[in-house]
């Protein structure tokens, strides 16, 4: 399998503080990869830097092309999509408009098919399509954020803490949907504090601590690793409700 996304020796800094140090990772086609780690480990920073929201020092390639000179909008057009931690929805616009804007970079005919796909994946959004995004519940907003990203028919979807602040039953629903994306030909790079749920659906995993990857391997191996079990899986409950 060829690498869809490859990042090598990436550094991200806020001023003089280096939040991500010498990180390398790969995501292959039709793969679900997760990055787990505690609060403040640098996971969100890394995702934002891959998307181009923050400047990244190092090499990033997507679908065989160098992404370094591209800005966010070009990366979106290339098929890379981020669902950010704070979702960044268009709160005063309705669900349908939010989704339509998700398809801003793709032709109209394709957008019609994307609508169908997203509404099948999230029937709830279809029911609420005339409601303002800002008035949706947390779970619905997360669905809308994912739906909006999927409207652009991305090759790789990067999800930042999709379970954040959601009720367990909705979290289960969201994770089931993430699992279904693979069948639809979308690769996923998932950042989660809810390590147990993330490792269950992922193929491979990286463990991040203080800005560095300390472990990587198949999700199964990582889940059975003693250190991971002690640090992340043992404190599952705090992890799930943490902010």
């Amino acid at each position, binding site marked *: 399998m060829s690498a869809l996304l490859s990042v090598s020796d990436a550094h991200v800094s806020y001023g003089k503080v280096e939040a991500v140090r010498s990180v390398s990772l790969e995501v292959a086609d039709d793969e679900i990869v997760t990055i787990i780690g505690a609060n403040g480990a640098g996971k969100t920073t890394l995702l934002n830097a891959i998307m181009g*929201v923050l400047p990244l020092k190092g090499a990033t390639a997507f679908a065989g092309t160098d992404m370094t000179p591209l800005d966010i909008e070009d990366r979106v057009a290339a098929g890379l*999509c981020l669902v950010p931690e704070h979702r*960044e*929805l268009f709160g*005063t616009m309705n669900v349908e*408009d939010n989704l339509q804007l998700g398809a801003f970079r793709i032709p109209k005919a394709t957008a019609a098919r994307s609508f169908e796909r997203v509404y099948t994946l999230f029937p709830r959004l279809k029911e609420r399509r005339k409601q303002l995004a800002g008035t949706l519940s947390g779970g619905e907003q997360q669905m809308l954020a994912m739906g909006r*990203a999927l409207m652009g028919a991305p090759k790789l979807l990067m999800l930042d803490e999709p379970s954040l602040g959601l009720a367990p039953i909705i979290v289960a629903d969201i994770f089931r949907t993430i699992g279904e994306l693979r069948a639809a030909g979308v690769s996923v790079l998932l950042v989660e504090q809810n390590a147990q749920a993330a490792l269950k659906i992922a193929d491979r995993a990286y463990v991040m601590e203080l800005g560095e990857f300390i472990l990587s391997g198949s999700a199964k191996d990582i889940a059975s690793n003693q250190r991971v079990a002690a640090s992340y899986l043992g404190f599952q409950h705090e992890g799930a409700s943490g902010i």
Partner: protein
Amino acid sequence: MNTTIMLFLLQDGITNGAIYALLGLALVLVFAVTRVILIPQGEFVTFGALSYAMLATGQVPGTAKLAMAMGVVAFGLDLFEARRSLRLKRVARAFALNIALPAAILALTYGLAGPKTPIAVNIALSLLIVAAIGLFLYRIAFQPIAHTSVLVLLIASVGCHLALQGLGLVFFGAEGLRGPALSNAALTIGPLRFTGQSLAVYGLTIAFIVALWLFFGFTLMGKALRATAVNRLGARLVGIRTTLSGQIAFLLASLIGAISGILIVPITTLYYDTGFLIGLKGFIAAIIGGLVSYPLTAVAALLVGSVEAFSSFYASNFKEVIVFTLILPVLVLRSLAAPAVEEEKD
């Protein structure tokens, strides 16, 4: 005061108010998309009006050359910004927009300007010139600092206003100009006489408001502009270029400004610095609308126009004072209604 005078004043107020409404809407639009408080809006009015008036006398206005010069600067900025990845396609696109477009406008102006040029052609030329200036103004002055605070943007905005006003003096001189009316038709209803010009003001204002409503409510580009206003990061994450949104906002604002100018220059004599005061009245309407609400801004503009008309009848020396005092109770009410919020960071 009798009913006839009152009707006259009301008619006058509504005609002016319609112009203020157009300008207020443009201000709200630009602020929502770019967070720039567009002080140079008044210069778009004068540039549009006086370019039209000069073209009507058969002369080529200096604004056409200004558009060309600004295009060259914008091209330089584009090249400098893309210096690390100079692809031919990118350079060609920048050249087409920044050099070829204003050059074509300049050539058209030289080619078509003359004492016998039809009014419609003169209007089209003035609109093209001012639209290009608006577009390049965003590229040169605001795009490089788009991420800074509202205050920095406001300071740049005041700077642009002063610079453009000075250029206006160079181009048009200190003498006032008037332009030919769009139509000499007139219509009398009861005691009121509606000139073709004032009917054009009403018609165009309503047409513009409807067009803006359709654009923002129903087209993908309009929705993208609104999305940029609601959430800049969200807009970028779906692939909407915020610089493009800013350019479109400035393009629309300069067009609206120029149209307002062309509508009023047959009614009143305009000087190179008249636009500022007119723009400020649109600004008052926009502030009453909280810089967010389009309908409230339009209604407030009619109110500003009417207050101006009545105060110029009763106390003409104080007419500006009375109009600008309108803003005080509104600001007091708004600050009482909404607690102070810190400016959101991008």
